[in-house]
């Protein structure tokens, strides 16, 4: 029995990597000399940074049995607010204010969720509309430019050595996320709340507090994604993050986090978002039409998830 369960765990962790490598190797073969080049890999790392970062917070939300559909709005508001703040304040303060915006939005989701006892899907469906509306009115749909070169360099378009700062941020946030998720009592409590809310409550866990913080973390990483967007684009606009939330959720689930909560990994999520990123990149390089890309992307998402859930079939 000891052996069996050991094998199980290994297999299930392993499988998260399989879809990653299948996609990686698949495209490398289909696109010799084009896909697996340093340049293209750096492209993919840069392009997925915004999703990878937001997906870290989403991993917490989904693990706690919740979901956040409002990340797009939070990303947009944060990008705009940060850009506006950069016109008056130094980089660090503007970034902190931006993160603060994410905190507030996430916390609002958390409060509505726990106080009104509305399912997260609905709360964030509603607040998503509110946040997007707010982002649109903030500058009346107008773009805000960013001329702060330090900010643009360190949060967006710069490199350190030859590594894009965007990717460095992805790594930093993922590592912090993974540590909190796996190694702290808070992370354990998030897993417990998602695994069985009543059992968690019986164990003396303040389930509302945990759900609140899971949503807040999700808001914060969505905000950080907005900061990266604005630095990468040297400006902000209400459309940033607009279509990301489904990609973010897909990244989390492909990464092996259970959609019904209680199980997951943040490293897996990073791989999941890289799968999405490689897919977007590779399908384009293949020269497929937009329609064909959509069809292929849908098929690969279903395949990747069914692969990462395969181990459950045996039960």
């Amino acid at each position: 029995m000891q052996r069996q369960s050991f094998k199980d765990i290994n297999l299930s962790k392993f499988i998260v990597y399989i879809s990653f490598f299948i996609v990686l190797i698949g495209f490398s073969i289909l696109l010799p000399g084009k896909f697996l080049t340093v340049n293209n890999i750096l492209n993919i790392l840069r392009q997925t940074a915004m999703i990878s970062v937001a997906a870290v917070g989403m991993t917490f939300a989904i693990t706690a049995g919740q979901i956040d559909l409002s990340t797009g709005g939070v990303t947009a508001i944060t990008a705009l607010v940060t850009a506006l703040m950069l016109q008056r304040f130094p980089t660090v303060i503007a970034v902190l204010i931006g993160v603060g915006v994410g905190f507030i939005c996430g916390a609002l989701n958390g409060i509505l969720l726990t106080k009104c006892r509305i399912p997260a899907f609905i709360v964030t469906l509603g607040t998503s509309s509110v946040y997007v509306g707010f982002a649109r009115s903030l500058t009346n749909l107008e773009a805000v430019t960013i001329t702060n070169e330090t900010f643009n360099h360190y949060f967006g378009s710069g490199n350190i050595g030859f590594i894009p700062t965007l990717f460095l941020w992805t790594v930093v946030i993922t590592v912090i996320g993974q540590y909190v998720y796996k190694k702290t009592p808070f992370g354990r409590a998030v897993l417990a709340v998602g695994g069985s809310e009543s059992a968690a409550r019986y164990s003396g866990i303040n389930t509302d507090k945990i759900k609140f913080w899971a949503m807040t973390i999700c808001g914060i990483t969505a905000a950080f994604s907005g900061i990266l967007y604005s630095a990468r684009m040297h400006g902000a606009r209400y459309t940033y993050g607009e279509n990301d939330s489904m990609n973010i959720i897909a990244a989390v689930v492909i990464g092996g986090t259970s959609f019904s909560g209680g199980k997951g990994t943040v490293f897996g999520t990073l791989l999941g978002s890289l799968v999405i990123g490689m897919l977007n990149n590779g399908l384009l390089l293949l020269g497929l039409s937009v329609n064909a890309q959509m069809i292929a992307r849908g098929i690969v998402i279903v395949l990747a998830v069914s692969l990462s859930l395969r181990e459950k079939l045996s039960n």
Partner: protein
Amino acid sequence: AEENSEFLTMIPNYDNAVGTYAQGPNGEEAVAADDVNLTEEQYAVVKDMHLSLAMLWAGAGEWYNGMTDGAKSECEKMGIEIATTADAEFDPAQQATQIETALSLSPDIILTLPVDPASGTAAYQPAVDQGVKIVFADNSVNGYIGGEQYVSVCTGDQYGMGRTCAQLISDAIGGSGKIGIIYYEADYTVTNNRDNQFVRSILEDYPDIEIASMMGFAEETATGEVASAMLTQNPDLDAVYVSWDVAAEPVVAEIRSSGYDTKLVTIDLGGNNDLEMANGGIVYGKSADMPYQIGATMVKTAALSLLGEEAPTYIVSDSICMTKDNIEESWISAMNCQPSDDVLKALGK
């Protein structure tokens, strides 16, 4: 020429009627927007009519803001009350819904940008039946005739803008080189027309320019991936054309981080890219129509029609050719406002 025909038929609606100058939906000759005007007396008469108006746009953004502002300023002059504003998010069904709903407010005028000419026929019928003066922006709907079902179509010169972009891109790369085209892959007449005209102009008028790659996109936020794929396959691209400004932003970001010396040309004004242009960066030039003027003209034609005057049925605003040198002037004429402070600062003003 063989492969050229492939480029010519790639974008939806490539077979729309083609002329040197864009003609109206029923072959009308274009009237310049500047030529549509009301006399002082006519303003006074309209003011006494206490009219109301609804704006039912297809989407949202700075361009729509410009149009709304233009219409609003004219409404103020004429004492027209704005009953409601809506954005159909490019969904024809939602637009049909918004038309029906707006009609409950019994507006005298509807300014609208039809999302879909095909289904628009049925969608606008209730408004026609109710006798509302409809003024279209950009395109009409199938089967309608100017002066009958609607007053007029006011549009930017899509073909003109396509041509201007071809000119700009040629300037940017010194007359010869390789370019890429990133076009909107959707059935949307306005962008289809400008994209197709751009392709045609390049093929016909600039034989030294080679179209190295043409790729479509479906979401304006997802063009970065397209650009990087294009650059990966063609690292030697000299310039890129993108359908419109917002869609060009991620492309600019992608070019910037790729480190290539690739120029970009696009359509519409917009803060982020104009700053890049002011700084002499990736964005070389832009074409744009004049949304403020279009909005104002739409109200004017509606008023003329309500006064019993004959309004022109097809009105085209000027298009602008903007480079680093005329950013400020362009903003003032197109949007009736100054570019952002950052842009002015970059221009040294």
